[in-house]
């Protein structure tokens, strides 16, 4: 996945000691605001297939940084609505085909900007139509496809769960109606992706990977089955695997013998938070690592120091800092990667 990168690079400001680093809130806000203005760069156009994702990542970061209105609401509403297809699915950008991932991001954006009324204006019974698009992607064995072309992945299952949950269409949110998805079949599939080391993979038989751990644990959390399924022993086992992701630099990797990357501050951090074992990491060292990945002059956060920044690593670095309790950063919901005060309104199982 490529993203419009730079111009900044992760580094410590000149003349500053590592311990003195702070989160450069204003620079990050300005960086996010500037992203849509870079239409004179080829990479901007080459990453159009990710645009709605970029907007969700940027908007979430802005919320956590205390600047939820830094991107104009009307512009966001117009853009999201222009990605909507007749079947209720959203594409990554206007004209791009509908896909469960981009539908998920769109629903998250609409939730954060309180845009469902505007959705209904464009598409009567819109929430129901979007929920139906998602529900129709469930396969007979419980897993979810991304679109009509059939690729399946635990990421899509997680997308389905959190999207329906935000729309209010998870079966537990409508107990008097027939369920539009088969939750037990879906969670059975997640459990089939569970490995002996406590982690989860992309499909049954696949090795544990932090990204998939987040999506599987997140999905179980949204479905209200996390505690009952894992139990203390399962949480210990998973927590052990996750805690081993922290390397000497303080940063986290995605699986054994791989390089550290700031985005794992989120995938690993949120998973640990969801199983009450975030204290199994050295929080101070992780915080310092994330701060070193910032560009303190131009804003934005990179995957590791010296590399170029992008909006994906920016939001996951900031969300990671939120989990770690960094002062001034808004509280994030570890299952949804959205502001906690907004997800607090969701009806849980």
């Amino acid at each position: 996945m490529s993203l419009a990168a730079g111009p900044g690079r992760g580094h410590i400001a000149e003349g500053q000691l590592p311990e003195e680093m702070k989160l450069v809130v204003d620079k990050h806000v300005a960086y996010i605001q500037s992203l849509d203005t870079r239409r004179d760069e080829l990479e901007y156009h080459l990453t159009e297939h990710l645009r709605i994702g970029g907007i969700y990542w940027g908007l979430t970061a802005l919320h956590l940084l205390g600047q939820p209105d830094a991107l104009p609401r009307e512009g966001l509403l117009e853009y999201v609505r222009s990605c909507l297809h007749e079947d209720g699915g959203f594409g990554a950008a206007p004209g791009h085909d509908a896909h469960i991932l981009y539908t998920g991001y769109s629903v998250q954006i609409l939730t954060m900007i309180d845009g469902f009324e505007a959705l209904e204006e464009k598409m009567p019974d819109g929430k129901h139509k979007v929920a139906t698009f998602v529900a129709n992607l469930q396969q007979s064995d419980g897993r979810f496809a991304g679109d009509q072309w059939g690729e399946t992945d635990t990421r899509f299952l997680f997308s389905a769960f959190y999207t329906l949950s935000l729309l209010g269409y998870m079966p537990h949110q409508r107990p008097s109606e027939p369920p539009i998805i088969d939750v037990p079949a879906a969670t059975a599939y997640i459990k089939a992706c569970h490995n002996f080391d406590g982690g989860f993979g992309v499909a049954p038989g696949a090795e544990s990977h932090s990204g998939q751990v987040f999506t599987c644990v997140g999905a179980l959390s949204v479905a209200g089955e996390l505690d009952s399924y894992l139990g203390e022993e399962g949480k210990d086992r998973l927590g052990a695997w996750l805690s081993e992701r922290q390397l000497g630099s303080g940063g986290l990797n995605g699986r054994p013998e791989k390089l550290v990357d700031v985005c794992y501050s989120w995938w690993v951090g949120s998973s640990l938070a969801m199983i009450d074992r975030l204290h199994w990491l050295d929080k101070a060292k992780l915080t310092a690592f994330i701060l070193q990945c910032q560009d303190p002059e131009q804003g934005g956060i990179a995957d590791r120091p010296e590399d170029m920044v992008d909006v994906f690593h920016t939001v996951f670095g900031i969300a990671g800092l939120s989990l770690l309790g960094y002062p001034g950063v808004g509280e994030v919901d570890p299952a949804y990667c959205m502001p906690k005060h907004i997800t607090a309104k969701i009806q849980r199982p």
Partner: protein
Amino acid sequence: MGSHGIPRVGATFDKSEQARDKEWKQIAQYQALEKDVVGRVNAKDYSDATFQLTSQLLTQNPEYYTIWNYRRLILQDVFARELAAADHPSEQGAAAADKAGLPPAQHEILLLIKEDLQFLIPLLKQYPKCYWIWNHRSWLLGAATKHLLARGAVELWQGELGLVSKMLGLDSRNFHGWGYRREVVQAIERLSGGGDEGKGSGGLVEPEFAYTTKMIQSNLSNFSAWHYRSQLMPALLSSRNADTAARQAFLDAEFELITKALYTDPYDQSLWFYHQYLMATLNPSNAQAPPILDPCGAAEHLQYLDQEIESVREMLDGAEDCKYIYQALLEYSGRYLELAPEGEGKVTVTELKEWLRELRKIDPLRDGRWRDLEGKMKL
């Protein structure tokens, strides 16, 4: 992800007028190509010309998933037309098809699929972690399976086994590759009529197990290969109709293999995870590690815990700063004491406290976890 791990060099943002101009031209060209493709597809122009344009666009941007969808629409259209025209094949087509032992329509479809598989190869080499490319490959093989006779499809799938082995040779940790390999193996077994209920047991399990041995021998630190090996075990033992003795011999051989590897490099985390896996197969509370032994009860569990605690203890000699050794000793001793609370002198509380103290010294990053462990083990 292109934005992971590659320090992008060369992109300067203080661009000269010339550089900006050049970039604008590239943008204009890209947008023109895009507009052309989208316009044609919207007008349902599924001609070869359109197809070639999608090739151009995808080569420039293989993550433009909508264009892969369009490419598949065109292919589906061609396949449908081939099948519809089946009654009137060209002379050339009929002769080639005859030679291949396939009806003309299927032969044409096979050629088109092979061509598209070829098209993907350089893209796959350049972007080995791009979901969309692997997915299109999967789709092509799926289409082949649907349209061709089993024999024709199996040959293609077997070709894929070679392809994925090459990709894993280039990067043995590429999980897209391992996932694709699993898919390929399952398909070959299913289409060859081997194995039970399409679960893919029997068939290729022996050569696949041998493949993991080869991967491990060429590079011990290959977590993905060790993981795949662990996943193959239940099917392997069942296909060998392994009895109690055979299963025990197998487990003992695996312990020997991993112990030897650990002596080569006790600091390699992947090896310790595999050792943990073997131990987990003895533990009924780990549902994700099905038993290797049969029967596998508390007696067997105790026996191997005993054996491995001794074995791991010896590894300390010369590797006193290796955190994984202490972790293993604490984990296995803890389990041992759960099964045999008297400990039978095997492990003393003094030893456990000492190991934990060393671990906290060596691995302060995870101090929160070690404090919890201390509480849990009542040390």
